[in-house]
């Protein structure tokens, strides 16, 4: 029995780390993996999702709808950013680092000035359950499920729908896609908006569990980037396995040696994985398959 309790505990912790990595990373994976845009304002889309969904809850909107609203708001913000700032930069993707860094500064400080240093939380719903000596938050199970649902939905969208194929074509050789009748500007906006909406979703989902401050996006950034890059160019073949590997390492080390070991261990795992697979996990998978 004791053993089963510990086993459950480990799976819960692994699932928790996995969910955080996946949900942090998905939006970035779409924007970076698909579009090659290094979006340093990723955290601010998360912030947007968190603030909008929390405000909605304060106004009495049920949580699931509030989260959807957060995601939607971030998505719309993303499309606006795409049109105004990102669109002229596709030919020089590295410059997006600076532009999105600038956006991140504007949003963070703007939020501070307009909305103050903090926003009151909405509280985590659903309560807790116990397994053996340990009690767990039910909401965190919801987060794990949401991570899996998000992955599945994305996979379907990108491989089984026309949008997915056109989006990938547009990102790979834009001028040819355009010449073949693809409205590449629209595709860019939708793709960027999707990435931002996914970031907003992460924000909405985690908002009940976190401190709401203008700088909260930063808490997601390292994990998100690391997961996406370890995953490599293909977001589906990459992000999920990368989150599994990194989540496993992080959860094991954290439970064994504490948070510092978890953090440093994850970063060292990144260094090692990339050394072994210089094109990321999906680079390896794709090479094998070809």
């Amino acid at each position: 029995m004791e053993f089963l309790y510990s086993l459950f505990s480990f799976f819960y912790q692994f699932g928790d780390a996995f969910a955080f990595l996946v949900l942090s990373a998905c939006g970035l994976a779409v924007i970076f993996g698909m579009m090659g845009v290094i979006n340093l304002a990723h955290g601010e889309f998360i912030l947007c999702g968190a603030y909008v969904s929390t405000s909605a809850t304060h106004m009495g909107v049920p949580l699931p709808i509030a989260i959807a609203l957060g995601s939607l708001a971030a998505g719309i913000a993303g499309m606006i950013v795409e049109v105004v700032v990102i669109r002229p930069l596709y030919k020089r993707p590295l410059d997006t680092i600076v532009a999105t860094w600038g956006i991140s500064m504007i949003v963070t400080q703007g939020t501070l000035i307009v909305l103050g240093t903090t926003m009151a939380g909405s509280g985590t719903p659903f309560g807790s359950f116990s397994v053996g000596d340990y009690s767990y938050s039910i909401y965190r199970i919801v987060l794990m499920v949401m991570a899996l649902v998000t992955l599945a939905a994305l996979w379907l969208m990108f491989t089984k729908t026309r949008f997915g194929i056109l989006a990938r074509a547009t990102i790979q050789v834009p001028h040819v896609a355009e010449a073949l009748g693809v409205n590449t500007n629209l595709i860019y906006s939708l793709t960027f908006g999707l990435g931002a909406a996914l970031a907003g979703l992460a924000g909405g989902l985690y908002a009940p569990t976190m401190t709401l401050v203008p700088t909260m996006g930063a808490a997601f950034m390292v994990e998100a980037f690391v997961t996406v890059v370890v995953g490599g160019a293909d977001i589906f073949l990459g992000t999920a396995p990368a989150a599994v590997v990194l989540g496993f390492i992080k959860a094991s080390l954290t439970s064994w040696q504490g948070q510092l070991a978890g953090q440093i261990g994850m970063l060292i795992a990144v260094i090692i994985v990339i050394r072994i697979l210089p094109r990321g996990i999906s680079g390896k998978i794709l090479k094998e398959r070809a």
Partner: protein
Amino acid sequence: MSSASRFTSFLKLIEGPQTLGKGPKFWSGFGVVLLAACAYPAFADSYDVGNNVYFFNWLFMAMGLSLIWGYGGALSFGQTAFFGVAGYAYGVLTINLGDAYGLTLISLVLAVGISALFATILGYFLFFGRISGVFLGIVTLSVTLVLERFMAQTAGPEWAIGKARLNGFNGMGAMPSLTIPWPGGNIVLYPDVTLYYVTLVLLLVCYLGLRILVNSRFGNVIVAIRENPMRAEMLGYDVRKYQLATFVIGSALAGLSGVLYTSWGNYITPASMGMTAASLPIVWVAVGGRSDLTTTLVGTLAVLIVFQSLTIYGSQYALIVMGTLLVITVLIAPRGIVIALLSPFMRRKSKLEGER
């Protein structure tokens, strides 16, 4: 070829296809700027002089990144790792060795050497493992974050090297400033006029040295590797060695920045290797115009000055204005602010030709 003419042809490399500024116009402008820089302390107060030294401190790291990224095409997101390693190395060495007999200067050299050695090891791992592109960026970022997180928890007394406490997140302090041994009393290089000239000379030497480097055959090869590593290899160049050499030189410059910064404020902190610190050089160099040493130098200095002024006068709106400036700059000045500001005044130079 006689050694004299060899030397002149070496000096000729100060101009070439890899650097924008050329011809008498540029060099006379350069001379004027240099003279103004030399005369500056006569007209400025001690605060301004010391503050300018502070700005100068970062320029070495920026030029190093320009070399690695702008010329070599390898986006290192972790130059701060070398900055930090050298800063801490300088702290540990000088706290243990003291500031007599020019030992701080030897420490400077050793600290830069240590960061170069570290860059060699990391660079070997990266380039001989054929890691490139964004993967390189994330590995270097991970390295600097690991260092930051590790150093942040070294507060306990067990974390000491000799007499030097690493002192965790609070940062290491109390190391002596650079000190020049001098008959009749050592000259301590506090942030003031003497340090200003010393740093200016270092800057000049590094700048001109890098110009020669990028216009030499070596420079041709590293830009070739940036454009197409496979083709460069198929012209018979050992791409990995060139990449490694570029990385080590650029990182040693980051190390030099680290030492100068540490000596300037008698302080080095893990935060100088953190995420924000790591992004800053990229922002400076990109905004300045990464593909040229001069634009990087001038642009970085401009960004540093403008951002500091904004922070002084802009109160809480400073960050918003900075962010807006960054976005606008990137959108309207694809080759950096320096070229954008100059282009109305100069004829389109050969390097600009054929640009869309």
